[in-house]
């Protein structure tokens, strides 16, 4: 069979199965096993060994631990405490301080956990009632919470970057470093947008800012309560870059620190631990099952040299790499609107990664870019997870209000993505500096 027929069959089978609601792990797995059998029936006999080899990975073991750490922070109420510690200072410093708090807390929470959904849920639970009480516009309030939540998967430690690293054999340390500058830029861009909007329409945060401005004493006392963030960030990221621990070991250190801090505050009950474990099992099993199926798919694509042949074909077309990249960006934006972003990344990576690398793009840069494209999917209907979380927290908010609030942040995210495409050095500078 020629290449185009094979690719058309493969893509159509996946599209039909996925959009007919077959769980992604089954859709991918069935297509992978079927393709392997068709390519070489003897190869399907190796499915057991391929499964065992693909799943037993030291890098992958960081995922359940980072997820567990995030859930412990969320379920124990530590993340709520972090929010309460940061927002008085934001209130004092900036008009619409609570909106800025949502972004800053999202970044802080991201720096110690890596889960967007837990971050969004935490900020939403605390911030939405408070913003409502102060008469903030519902739309921008919800949008800022959803946007703050997106930072979780970009700012290290990021689960999506670990999955990317495990699938493409890239250094997790370099990927984490690559996410730092874009994470800071994105946080600043969200805050700039909020400041700009409030300047244009002060009514969005009507009549509350000056009246309830907390004193500097209150600000610093509250800020002092956020010390767990510093401890966790230093414990996790510091242990990696000081050479004390690998990313997997740093995840265990993060879990232990979270456990000790939560227990020290008296927040750690049996119930909290049970909920944290249940949440982490659900997320880990879901993510890694898709990873496993995609890994089998990747083996077929490599065996039949599909990606190599496709890359050669695309290179022969002599199209500009920029046009190809733009096509990929559009593809991921659309895919992110239709399905879970991480699942979209994992299932397409075996096909797109070799192509992007053969076009001459930096793999670390691509990992960060892809993670940001996934973030877009968290904010866009119809399957923007952060929007659903907010609707779950505030069922009285019409979905349209949530979407209207999230869209400007989505455009801001697109602008930052464009910036990273124009200046790849923003991603690659730190990894090259630390890993020359």
């Amino acid at each position, binding site marked *: 069979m020629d290449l185009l027929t094979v690719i058309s069959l493969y893509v159509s089978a996946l599209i039909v199965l996925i959009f007919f609601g077959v769980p992604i792990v089954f859709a991918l*797995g069935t297509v992978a096993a079927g393709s392997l059998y068709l390519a070489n029936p003897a190869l399907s006999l190796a499915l057991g060994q391929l499964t065992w080899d693909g*799943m037993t990975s030291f890098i992958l073991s960081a995922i359940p631990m980072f997820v567990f750490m995030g859930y412990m922070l969320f379920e124990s109420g530590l993340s709520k405490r972090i929010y309460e510690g940061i927002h008085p200072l934001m209130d004092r410093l900036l008009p619409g301080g609570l909106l800025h708090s949502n972004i800053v807390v999202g970044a802080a929470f991201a720096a110690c956990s890596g889960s967007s959904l837990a971050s969004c849920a935490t900020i939403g639970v605390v911030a939405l009632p408070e913003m409502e009480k102060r008469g903030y516009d519902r739309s921008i309030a919800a949008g800022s919470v959803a946007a703050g939540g997106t930072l979780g998967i970009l700012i290290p430690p990021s689960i999506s970057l670990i999955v990317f690293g495990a699938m493409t054999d890239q250094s997790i340390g370099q990927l984490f470093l690559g996410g730092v500058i874009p994470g800071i830029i994105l946080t600043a861009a969200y805050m700039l947008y909020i400041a700009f909007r409030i300047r244009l329409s002060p009514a969005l945060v009507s009549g509350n800012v000056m009246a309830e401005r907390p004193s500097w004493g209150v600000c610093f006392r509250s800020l002092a309560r956020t010390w767990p963030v510093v401890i966790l960030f230093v414990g996790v990221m510091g242990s990696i870059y000081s050479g004390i*621990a690998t990313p997997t070991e740093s995840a265990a250190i993060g879990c232990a620190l979270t456990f000790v801090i939560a227990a020290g505050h008296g927040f750690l009950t049996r119930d909290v631990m049970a909920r944290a474990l*249940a949440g*982490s099992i659900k997320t880990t099993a879901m993510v890694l099952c898709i990873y496993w199926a995609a890994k089998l798919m990747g083996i077929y694509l490599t065996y039949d040299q599909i990606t190599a042949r496709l890359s050669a074909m695309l290179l022969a077309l002599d199209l500009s790499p920029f046009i190809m990249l733009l096509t990929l960006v559009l593809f991921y934006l659309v895919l992110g609107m239709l399905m879970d972003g991480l699942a979209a990344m994992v299932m397409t990576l075996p096909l797109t990664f070799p192509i992007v690398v053969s076009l001459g793009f930096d793999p670390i840069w691509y990992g960060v870019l892809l993670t940001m494209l996934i973030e877009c999917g968290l904010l866009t209907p119809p399957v923007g997870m952060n929007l659903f979380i907010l609707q779950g927290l505030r069922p009285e908010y019409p979905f349209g209000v949530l979407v209207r609030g999230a869209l400007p942040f989505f455009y801001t995210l697109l602008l930052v993505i464009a910036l990273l495409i124009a200046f790849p050095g923003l991603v690659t500078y730190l990894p090259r500096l630390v890993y020359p």
Partner: protein
Amino acid sequence: MLRALRMLVPKVGLYVGGAGVLAMVLLILAEIVSTKLFNYSLPYVLEYTEYLVPVIVFWGAAYALAEGAHVRADILVHRFPVNVRRWIFLAGYVLGLTFLALIFAHLFSVTWLSFKMNRYSFYPSPSPLWPPQLFASIGLGLFILQLILEIIDMALEILRDRRAKGRRPDGGTAEADSGQRRQEWIS
């Protein structure tokens, strides 16, 4: 029996998966302490941390399935009537069962081979491969069992709906006609 299995299977998956996560954290912490403080790397830690990944994933997958956590893109399917949707989901699950059963058979045969040929891992302190492989295979078996339970539930729902329609000449749904039917049975 079915009800007991429905309660038991996800719970077992959750307990084993949860224990796996805790064991992983403890193993790695022990390794860090031992390496940094005593300059001695504990044997088996690296290896067993790796083996815990498929254990957590496959045992946990049964729980995730029962909780509806395995993501699917259902934006198209949600436009279909409930009956059609059930059939589509059932077909998807049967497909999944075929895939999982295939992998289970092959993973089990890998385990059997490891046992029969007395295979050991390629680590400085080699350990037999079949125990972790067997444990992961059983986890995959539990995932399959949960999937079979989901398939049975879905098939029962379809059957119930068909029976309800069959009893009514106008082909209405079970929910719409349940009160009237109960009266008929009583009389």
